[in-house]
């Protein structure tokens, strides 16, 4: 005899809603409470940010103070200082172009086709070089602009990119040294890594910016900006070294033994066998570390740099726009959010992709 299985009729839309949100009294209460909170917050936010906000600059600060909502005209009036800081007015296109170069460089290095050590190094070297040339000038007919005039988003990006550029190779060195078979080398490196990790980043930045000049001979001191970048790179590399080391531990020992049996020398084994596999294991944690250190570059504001946060403070801090602090902070938060959120979404995507390929 043939059995005929009849599927139950698909639930209607109302029935579906009831099942999803009002299955039990408790569910109903939770749903209603969440809905109320969401509608209330969304309404408040929209009302403030859109409906009763002032967008045009024509009315000046007075029009803003009369309105109940957000005063986006402060952004319209002050976006240049937020993005470019004290960079000379007529040269600011260079600063903008330099930011674009960094973004393009980051996007390129997210594409798997470029994931070989040489290509990544090439992209980052070229990108940073281009950024530096555009910002500093002095060649190709570009006017010279010293580091003391850099500011805003461009300075934030510069500090972040150079931190990674110095910190990443340093992290690999530290990880290799810590894995060394010679006990004194691995122990000393471990001491350095753990020491740096146990300190807050602010104290390291402060030490490099303010204290280090006492301990260095004159010819080694360099600009304060580069000292701070060095400090932040050291901090980055201490954390990244542990991530790389974790990735190396995930590589089966047979791999290295096989390479040894083939007669490969130490550097060949490291660069051809161990590191590529280790970096693949460490990829999600590495992206996460990049995200964290991008957020943490904002701390350089404390040792007196005119990066995006400081230029935001300056944008509302003087004179007529004094009341519009929420709008400025919201705008800067939005800029950070775009960078950090897209990078962390990319990290999550990569993690999913890798967990699929491992099965």
């Amino acid at each position, binding site marked *: 005899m043939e059995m005929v299985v009849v599927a139950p009729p698909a639930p209607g839309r109302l029935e579906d809603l009831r099942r999803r949100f009002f299955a039990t009294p408790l569910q109903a209460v939770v749903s209603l409470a969440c809905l109320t909170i969401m509608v209330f917050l969304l309404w408040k936010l929209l009302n403030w940010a859109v409906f009763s906000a002032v967008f045009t600059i024509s009315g000046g600060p007075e029009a803003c103070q009369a309105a109940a909502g957000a005063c986006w005209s402060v952004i319209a009036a002050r976006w240049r200082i937020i993005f470019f800081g004290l960079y000379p007015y007529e040269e600011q296109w260079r600063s903008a172009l330099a930011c674009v170069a960094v973004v393009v460089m980051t996007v390129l290095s997210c594409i798997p086709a470029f994931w070989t050590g040489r290509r990544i190094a090439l992209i980052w070297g070229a990108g940073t070089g281009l950024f530096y040339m555009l910002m500093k000038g002095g060649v190709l007919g570009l006017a010279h602009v010293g580091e003391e005039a850099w500011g805003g988003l461009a300075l934030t990006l510069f500090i972040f990119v150079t931190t990674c550029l110095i910190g990443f190779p340093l992290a690999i060195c530290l990880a290799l040294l810590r894995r060394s078979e010679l006990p004194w080398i691995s122990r000393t490196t471990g001491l350095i890594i753990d020491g740096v990790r146990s*300190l*807050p980043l602010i104290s390291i930045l402060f030490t490099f910016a303010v204290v280090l000049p006492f*301990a260095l001979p004159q010819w080694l001191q360099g600009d304060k900006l580069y000292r701070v970048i060095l400090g932040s790179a050291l901090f980055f590399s201490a954390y990244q070294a542990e991530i790389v080391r974790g990735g190396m531990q995930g590589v089966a020992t047979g791999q290295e033994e096989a390479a040894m049996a083939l007669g490969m020398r130490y550097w060949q084994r490291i660069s051809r066998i161990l590191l590529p596999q280790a970096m693949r294991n460490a990829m999600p944690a590495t992206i996460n570390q990049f995200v964290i250190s991008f*957020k943490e570059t904002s*701390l350089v504001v404390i040792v007196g740099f005119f990066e995006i946060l400081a230029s935001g*403070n300056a944008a509302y801090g003087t004179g007529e726009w004094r009341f519009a*602090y929420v709008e400025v902070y919201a705008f800067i938060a939005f800029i950070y959010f775009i960078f950090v959120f897209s990078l962390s979404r990319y990290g999550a995507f990569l993690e999913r992709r890798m967990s699929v390929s491992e099965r």
Partner: protein
Amino acid sequence: MVSPLRNQKVRNALLQVLYVGSIAAMVLAGVVIARRNLADQGITSGFDFLFKSTGWDVNFSLLPATANDPYWWYFLIGIINTLFLGSVGLILATIVGTIVGLARTSSNDLARLLGRTYVDIFRNIPLILQVFFWYAIITHLPTPRSAHEAWGFLLTSRGLYIPFPNVGSAAFAAATVAVIAAILLPAWLGRTSRLAQPIGQRRTIQFAAAAAALVCAAIILAIGRLPDTPLLDFPALQGLNLRGGLRIPPEFATLAIAIAIYGGSYIAEIVRGGFKAVGTGQVEAALSLGLSPWRVFTLVRLPLALRAMLPILANQYVWLMKATTMGIAVGFTDFFMIVALTINHSGQTLEAIGILMAGFLAINLSLAAVFNRINKAIALKSNQLRS
């Protein structure tokens, strides 16, 4: 003749000596140069300055402080301020994180969406920006004369004023300890190894212990109460200033709020991860034994999730403790700010940095030690988290 350099052991020894030696040489050279530079400025090295008076003031302190106090006393104040701010921030962040994390693991789509929005927003904005934001909000609150008022709380640009019981500070501290004991005692007694009674009787003992501790707190408050004053001291406007109640300075409130909200978004993810690590088999087994959803939660999911969370949570707590150093951005006198001020005022650069490192090392190590103890005490003897 064989060159000694061809011998692997000799080469290894040489390499190690070279590596450690060059690092030691760099550090040593730095110290020597710094000493000479500081001596040129007329600053003598050594720790004698710890006993000189500072000559400047701190804006927040749990201990009495005047400008005549010596440096070592200020360092102590700084460490206590850091620990106090850190613990307040940690407790608040844990509360926020638990609520948001539970919302993210709930079966309700709306609650999940709400939790996710919260985490996405606050995780992706730097903490220092949030600190600046809350500080701007708080310092732009109205003056004491036109303060926002709600249930006896006053919100002003000079700080947040809350009603406070009229008791001496020593009695208040003792009562706080008693209340903490009332929370911790039942948990401590709940361990099977402490009491041999079955669960039902154990619960009575736990309740009795908590009640006893609370009664103790009440008695301490009653004895310590200042004579001829009402039970609660409400802040009120007197002349141009606010009198009474407890004033929470803007700097402290800013940092506590920022750490609670930012840290909460991270702890929420840890909480979510912890619940995800609990095997579905465990929950299904509990349900099939006929336990109610609430008891499944308190007896199976929560204890197992807690064990999965604890190591990551410990890391997060250490990080949040270090984040208190952002107080320097708004002028809260935490440990780092005291060190920075010391360097500015006394010039004892190397010594102050040494104290800073030692202080944070001690804080980190003791936090890690406490969490290791807890972790070891509650760890499951076999791998019971998997399904």
